[in-house]
């Protein structure tokens, strides 16, 4: 029997960020093969769901789905199904048809860039899933962006890949959206959204996912946090009542999407969180922290 290797930890630039994968509890060959397969899964999600890649499912949908049904990969179909369900359950706070709004605001490249006439989203119901992996948009001028959900989905698929190699412990971290499996709990350090140089708390997770959103922070350009990159689809304005949020959920696709909803809806997202068996930590405008009762015991606020 092969001897278990230690923990192997690797990173690659994918999904516009650094994706870090660590695994242990199998032979070195299996751990490395599992990590390779996990990176391949993330790269596949990137290929299928990038707004910027001209051949991605998302680009093909944005180009053709208003005129005829477009066939997509089962993974893309699954993300669309989850996104539409979240749209209805969040009463419009989560909306993948935000793309034309983001383009108008200059947050995504496109024809409407810098336009003063910012359109409205709230059209996710116009994305029709016809079965058999066929997707159609029911009207013209609809564009989707899966940026608020695809990263979490990629983390889940990467964990599946690690499972396939009999790995006992695994953790996938895609720029802050992460999930772990295995017998041992993991502690995740959460940056302070007001001052990202500092850490605000640690959250212990075990066999679950954690995703975070904050007002935009780009360490390459500036130390300062700027206006939120989260746009409220109902008002087309940046969300600014909440400085940052971290959501714990059974899967990373749900955790990722829920962070966007919590940034907009704040504590009124409680019912939705409960529906998805999720908990959240919010940093309010005045710097106070609110934690849902079910998450409280996993959080250590000071070291």
């Amino acid at each position, binding site marked *: 029997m092969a001897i278990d290797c230690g923990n192997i*930890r690797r990173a*690659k630039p994918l999904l516009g960020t*650094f994706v870090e994968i660590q695994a242990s509890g199998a032979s070195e060959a299996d751990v490395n093969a599992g990590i390779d397969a996990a990176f391949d899964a993330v790269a596949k999600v990137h290929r299928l769901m990038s707004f910027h890649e001209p051949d991605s499912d998302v680009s093909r949908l944005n180009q053709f789905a208003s005129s005829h049904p477009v066939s997509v990969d089962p993974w893309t179909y699954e993300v669309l199904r989850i996104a539409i369900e979240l749209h209805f359950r969040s009463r419009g706070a989560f909306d993948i048809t935000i793309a034309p709004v983001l383009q108008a605001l200059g947050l995504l490249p496109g024809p409407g860039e810098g336009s003063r006439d910012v359109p409205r989203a709230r059209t996710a119901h116009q994305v029709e899933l016809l079965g058999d992996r066929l997707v159609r948009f029911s009207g013209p001028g609809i564009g989707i962006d899966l940026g608020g959900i695809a990263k979490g989905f990629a983390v889940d698929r990467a964990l599946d890949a690690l499972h396939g190699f009999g790995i006992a412990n695994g953790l996938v971290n895609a720029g802050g959206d992460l999930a772990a499996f295995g017998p041992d709990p993991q502690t*995740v*350090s959460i940056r302070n959204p007001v001052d990202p140089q*500092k*850490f605000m708390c640690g959250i212990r997770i075990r066999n679950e996912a954690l995703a*975070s959103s904050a007002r935009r922070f780009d360490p390459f350009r500036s130390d300062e946090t700027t206006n939120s990159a989260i746009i409220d689809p109902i008002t087309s304005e940046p969300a600014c009542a909440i400085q940052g949020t971290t959501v714990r959920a059974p899967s990373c696709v749900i955790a990722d999407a829920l962070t966007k909803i919590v940034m907009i809806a704040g504590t009124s997202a409680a019912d939705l969180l409960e529906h998805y068996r999720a908990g959240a930590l919010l940093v309010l405008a005045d710097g106070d*922290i609110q*934690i849902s009762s079910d998450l409280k015991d996993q959080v250590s606020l000071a070291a």
Partner: protein
Amino acid sequence: MTKWVRYTLPAAAIVSIASPAYSMQYLSIAEAQKQAFPSATSFSEVQAGRVWKAEAGGRAVGFFIFDRVVGKHLLIDYAVALTPAGAVHSVEILQYRESYGGEIRSASWLAQFVGKTGGSPLKINGDIRNIAGATLSSTHVTEGVKRVLSAYGNRLR
């Protein structure tokens, strides 16, 4: 029923776990070479400390290029593996250093990284912490890969 609990964090509590610098060593150059070209039997230096030719049984299976990108607060060592024809085979991050203003204020935070080279096994239950809360842009690495490709893609044979 979800209830919310509200906390007011004293400023001191946040400062006490401040971390002005973070560093992570993933793979050494030798480990990354093996990862990129598992079939290779030798790696010969074409350009010292920067470019290696991977060979198996006297036949070139690809090239391995070590590079570094510098952002305002980040220093990232990475490697690009090229096929013999000069296409990108894989990109791997080797080491990652994030520091703000070059100041190292939190000795206890940095202490956890001491001795943690690629060669020393880490326990899964993280002696090195997992970080969440901000998306670090990988733009500079992506640009670096393009530079590597234009500098070496057609030149290495």
